[in-house]
């Protein structure tokens, strides 16, 4: 294939097609969620759907430009790209405007931009750049520290806004790390940590009548059981482990137990001491606990009810009263999936989930077919970021994840995220288009 072959012939049409499908899906559902079940004025610039329409055009423009720029340009400007993003994140903390308690936005008249949406692209590029240049990759401690730092700097700045949802998305890059050689034990440890976290929250919030001590949180039971488990493993070691490894396994057991207890205690005390009551309520609501405040689960109850009322085939476009009449909060942004659920039913929402999965898996395929390490690592970063958004956003609407406000990529209303994700994926498409003439 000649280098000058038209770009349109070389881009991955499945990925770009899915991207455009999601944008169209977004437009329809934003229209439905914001028009109050009346006729939609698609091009009224003062309406949310009109604004989103403009943003779709801008995003397609950004995609077009990205696709005609040489891939080498993105690789060579990665450091600048990343640095600019970090500077913007710093700047927004100083001159940003506060919306909903978070200083995340640059305001330009009626248009607002959210630098954290673009920082994802910058971070993914930077991570790919570093890991593709380093020998020994991630198993080299120095490289590991450097790459963790690359992720943590923007994440920390975003935490200061504060925007916990986006920080969690950065956490998703662990999949890219894993693909590049991070020990599988880390994934298992993260999974265990999640289990411990849930157990801590559940036991910490339930109460038990102890003789002599009165009503106390039953967190003590959890700690006692964990300790007993540790001692049991310790006792089982002689029977199960060959003698030369016994000492090492016992040491590992102690370390695991100690870190588990410290972790659990840390979670418990921060839950009791650091989190604000409404945050605590959100977490308890997620686990179906009665927090004595009927409004605590208002959002999630209404979101689930909207999805549930869709039934098999949904109420039809513009006919979902829960979303059209304001019963679901943030229904055109973070809760856009409710509209899909209510108006298109199980058929529509399961199809949406399927298409998302298809997009994610397709990006994995794209990443794996690269000769260039840079593109592969970048591809994994893109897949990780999109996956985290999908996981948290849809999980939240379905009542499986806590209420954390992050957009559903390409679908939720909002210019920054739409353009940010388009840029993120377009760069991958461009790099992929060039894969055949990359030399290893």
């Amino acid at each position, binding site marked *: 294939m000649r280098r000058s072959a038209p770009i349109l012939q070389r881009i991955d049409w499945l990925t770009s097609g899915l991207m455009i499908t999601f944008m169209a899906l977004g437009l329809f559902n934003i229209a439905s969620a914001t028009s109050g079940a009346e006729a939609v004025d698609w091009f009224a610039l003062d309406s949310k759907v009109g604004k989103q329409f403009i943003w779709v055009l801008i995003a397609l423009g950004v995609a077009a430009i990205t696709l005609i720029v040489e891939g080498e340009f993105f690789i060579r400007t990665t450091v600048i790209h990343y640095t600019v993003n970090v500077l913007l994140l710093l700047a927004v903390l100083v001159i940003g405007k506060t919306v909903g308690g978070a200083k995340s936005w640059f305001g330009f008249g009626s248009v607002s931009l959210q630098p954290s949406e673009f920082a994802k692209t910058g971070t993914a590029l930077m991570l790919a750049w570093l890991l593709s240049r380093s020998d020994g990759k991630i198993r080299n401690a120095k490289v590991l520290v450097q790459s963790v730092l690359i992720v943590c700097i923007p994440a920390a700045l975003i935490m200061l806004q504060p925007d916990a949802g986006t920080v969690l998305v950065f956490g998703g890059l662990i999949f890219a790390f894993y693909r590049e050689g991070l020990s599988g034990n880390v994934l298992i440890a993260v999974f265990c940590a999640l289990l411990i976290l849930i157990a801590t929250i559940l036991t910490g919030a339930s109460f038990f009548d102890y003789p002599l001590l009165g009503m106390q949180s039953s967190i003590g039971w959890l700690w006692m059981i964990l300790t007993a488990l540790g001692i049991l493993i310790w006792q089982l070691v002689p029977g199960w482990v060959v003698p030369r490894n016994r000492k090492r396994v016992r040491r590992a057991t102690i370390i695991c137990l100690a870190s588990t207890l410290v972790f659990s205690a840390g979670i418990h005390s921060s839950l009791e001491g650091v989190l604000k009551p409404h945050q605590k309520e959100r977490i308890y609501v997620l686990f179906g606990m009665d927090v004595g405040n009927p409004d605590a689960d208002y959002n999630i109850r209404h979101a689930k*009810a909207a999805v549930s009322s869709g039934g098999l085939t949904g109420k039809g476009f513009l006919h979902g009263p829960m979303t059209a009449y304001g019963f679901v909060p943030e229904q055109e942004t973070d809760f856009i999936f409710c509209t899909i659920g209510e108006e298109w039913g199980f058929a529509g929402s399961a199809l949406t989930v399927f298409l998302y999965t298809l997009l994610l898996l397709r990006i994995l395929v794209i990443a794996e077919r690269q000769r260039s390490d840079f593109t592969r690592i970048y591809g994994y970063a893109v897949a990780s970021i999109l*996956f985290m958004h999908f996981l948290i956003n849809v999980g939240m609407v379905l009542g499986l994840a806590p209420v954390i406000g992050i957009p559903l990529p390409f679908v939720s209303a909002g210019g920054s995220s739409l353009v940010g994700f388009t840029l993120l994926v377009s760069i991958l498409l461009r790099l992929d288009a060039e894969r055949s003439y990359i030399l290893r």
Partner: protein
Amino acid sequence: MNLKERQWIIGAVFLLISIIFIGRLAQLQLFSSELAQYAARLTQERELLEPARGLVFDRNGELFLDNKAGYDIFFTPRQCRIGGGMDTLALAQLIDLSPAEINKAIQKAEAYATYRPSTIRKQMPASEFAAIAGELWRFPGIQSRRRSIRTNKSGLASHLLGEYREVDRNDLQTNQDYKLGDYKGKSGLELQWETELKGQKGEKFHLVDVRNDYRQSAQEGELDFLPTPGTNLTLTLDMELQAYGERIMKGKRGSIVAIEPNSGEVLAMISAPSYGTDLLTGRKRGVHYDSLLHDPDKPLFNRTMRATYRPGSIFKMIQGLLALDQGVISTESRIACDRSIIGCHGPHTYDNLGGAIVHSCNPFFHEVMRRMIQPRKSTSVFEEARHELSGWTTAVRRFGLGTNLGGNFPGLRSGSVPDTTLYDKFYGAKRWAYSTIYSISIGEGELLTTPLHMANLAAILANRGHYRTPHVIKSIGEAGKPRGLDSLMNSRVSPELFAPIIYAMNAVTESTEGTAPLAQVPGFKVCGKTGTVQDSEGNHSVFIAFAPAENPQIALSVYVENAGSGGDWAAPIASLMMEKYLTRNVEQSQKEKRILGATYPFPNAKK
């Protein structure tokens, strides 16, 4: 493990999450209805459509009870807050509430539900509403809804028609059909015929938004249905007669009950003093009710059914009929007017039955009753009186006295016809004889009866022995008179025996010696009987009558409390009523003027 193989693990994680999501979607959308029902409850609101309440007409199609347009004003706290609050004082002024009232109403609304409308001003007449409707938009959270107001424009027959007002806690608990804020009949005919009058509510389902505003019809209106209007009632009352009766009773305490004798249809029921039903609708009800309740004339008291009086001399007709029936006297039997036993009046000395009725001779009827219950055939006067009285009681009750008259009038008091049980309880068994209880012979003592019973007695006399149970319903809707309303009852006194009584009753009004010349109606033969019932505050003036004698069209009782003798006041009132009904006109202007000018207290009542 080769790092390249890790793509499968990552891919598997992605797939696993998708499968969990699709499973969860299936659970929510396909296998659970609870949340979907919750969504339906949130987004659909049932609007109840009020049916028009049945109208109430008189026997000639004149309207007694009507519905007029009114408006309720609602307040929704949340909408007010969203709209930026409002000037409550200005609103109070606009809808005619005091600052304290409006603050209380707003607090109540807040406590009830912030997102649902609460009524803050009920039943605003359309005329008042029209003046302020244009201003209401200034107040966010304020809405109005049309609601008909029950109205009794004539203000007549208030006691009988009864009250229509907001349901209370008890109504809500006992009947699921009523919702908070609904209205229902609470007394009188409004209560008795509530089921027929109220109709059936319609329902309209709306989709509402989160502010609870109606946005569009739910399910294309498939679930909606229109209200069924209530059934109209046609009463037997004659509105013109009722109006005239209330006019001439103005300023007096007492009652008039007029019955059409051959049908038992009640033509007029006047309890004086009266009040306009409309005083007791609307927001000032409390004030009006309180003043009516504490009025010494007791205007809320329905004297026609609830007041029990001693009948006095009008009872003598029953005594005479029973005596003839039992054969203790004949029409020609004469009895000396022995005023040493019991007081009497007038110049007569030795009357037969006819004379005794005309002169209202007390000793005559004292002796007649003695012959009935104390014939002195037994050795013990106590046993004899006790034995004979029970038969007498039963016979008297056949004239309707002491009964509920067929039960068509809820709240009607039965009154009392004393029996052996009563006297045994009062004096002890065998501790009483005729000499103890003789005052009942002239309609005094333990005898108690309501004006309705007295009018019914007049109807029995007019019918020569039988009566149809009195009633006020002529037709329910188009269906006619309900069955069982006008059962035929009989006094079991043979019709021939009535002739001398009726002759004498005619003489009461027409002979020179009669006690009630003022009862005459020009051109008609009137039969009547006066009563003058002793009372410490002045005698009650009583009269029962019917006319014309041969073909009675109207029978009535008139009872004027503390007015004087029966012939002075009750008789002319009866005369005016009969003339009004029989000729639709009143020519006796002198008589009318005298009656209209007389008000409680009557100066010569104690004579």
